[in-house]
């Protein structure tokens, strides 16, 4: 019951629908990128968007649920990383709250901050559950670092950070652009949009 009440207060129907659409955008974005064979992920645009438009908690929940759903439609490995996606949404929401999404270059800085949050949560999961290796391109960076004599922790930190930096900066700038391009009628329905749209 208390969960229900919390939901009612924090999340209006509009926010809930926005989050559900954002989850779809995340997944479609990820699929499009792999269709175009691009070396980025782009699977968190929706999460960042919700962070901007509805705040850190809604953003975090969007990320969490996105990965749980990825887990159901492609591979449960994605579900293991749901806390990481959650951190991305929270970080984006906090950045927007403190005015770090007002211009495109501020959005780039937010992208870097999101990458840091991402790494903080991703590294322990990679280390503990996957022994530092997840069968992706980032493993090459990890093994290179290991070969240079770094410890496992340091190697994973560096590989997670470098593999995500460009992706998260692009994601942040794209999300900023999308919010800018939304019609006024839509942004007035989403109270937090003013964090981005006007000074």
């Amino acid at each position, binding site marked *: 019951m208390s969960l229900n009440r919390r939901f009612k207060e924090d999340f209006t129907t509009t926010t809930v629908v926005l989050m559900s659409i954002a989850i779809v955008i995340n997944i479609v974005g990820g699929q499009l990128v792999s269709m175009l064979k*691009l070396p980025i992920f782009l699977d968190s645009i929706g999460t960042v968007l919700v962070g901007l438009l509805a705040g850190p908690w809604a953003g975090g929940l969007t990320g969490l649920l996105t990965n749980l759903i990825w887990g159901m439609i492609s591979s449960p490995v994605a579900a293991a990383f749901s806390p990481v996606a959650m951190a991305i949404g929270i970080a984006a929401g906090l950045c927007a709250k403190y005015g770090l999404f007002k211009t495109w270059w501020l959005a780039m800085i937010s992208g870097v901050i999101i990458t840091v949050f991402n790494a903080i949560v991703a590294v322990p999961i990679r280390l503990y559950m996957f022994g530092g290796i997840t069968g992706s391109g980032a493993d090459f960076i990890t093994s290179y670092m290991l070969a240079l004599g770094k410890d496992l922790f340091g190697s994973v930190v560096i590989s997670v950070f470098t593999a995500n930096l460009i992706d998260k900066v692009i994601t942040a700038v794209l999300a900023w652009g999308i919010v800018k391009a939304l019609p006024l009628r839509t942004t007035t329905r989403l109270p937090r949009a003013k964090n981005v749209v006007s000074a």
Partner: protein
Amino acid sequence: MAPNKTTATLFIDKDSWLQRLHPLTKLSYILLTGVAAYGGPSSLLYICLLLFCNAVITASGGLLKDTAKALLRVILPLLLFMIPIHSFLFPGNRTVLLEFHGMIVYQEGLLFAISTLTKLTVVLIASFLFVFSTHPADLITALSHTCRSPSLAYLLGSPLLLLASMRERIETIQAAQRARGLDVDGNMFRRFLSLAPLLLPLVLGAIVEVEQRSIALEVRGFKSTSIKTSLRKLSDSALQRFCRWLMLAIAAVVLLLHGLG
């Protein structure tokens, strides 16, 4: 392994006792397995025992073949990376197992890789069991009953259905792309530029539709405060409810002991 056409998830339409099990029972089982694998003793024998238990359950539900196939797809790339990287480069490597043209395979790294992989396999099997045997509609019903939160059920359920309809839109785009011979194989910069015109209309259109979607939900009593009824019937039993609590309790105890130890 293609997702189920109607549910968009990996659900396999079969009639077994696993299919009929309450979704929350299966979710509790994933939690228990996870805690048992990562919080229990780290001996390889113990992990293999867990592995065996999961395999038996899978087989009894008639899902052994599908699970094996799915596992292979997930674990194989991990295995190919993990075994060599850790056997050669694991920082804790001391004991030489064998030497081959200057490449040294160490025992510690190899064991570390094997133990990580088996633990992961245990949890993966439990997760595949859940995903393969649970129709998302049952999950939605279970969540809206248990959490009494229409929002949470909506958030997990609606993306799946929207994806199914969105997939058709993407396939159309994809076909159009191919017909124009566009950039799927062109240089990376050009492919990157073709991303925005694909993605942006889709995203903007979807966000603009949020307003109508939420109004449509509201007028259909989505936020109604009356006690809700359900058309879909979920089979549940006292035994299952007991098992759920038991599994959660065991998981809590294991976690506690792990924390203390």
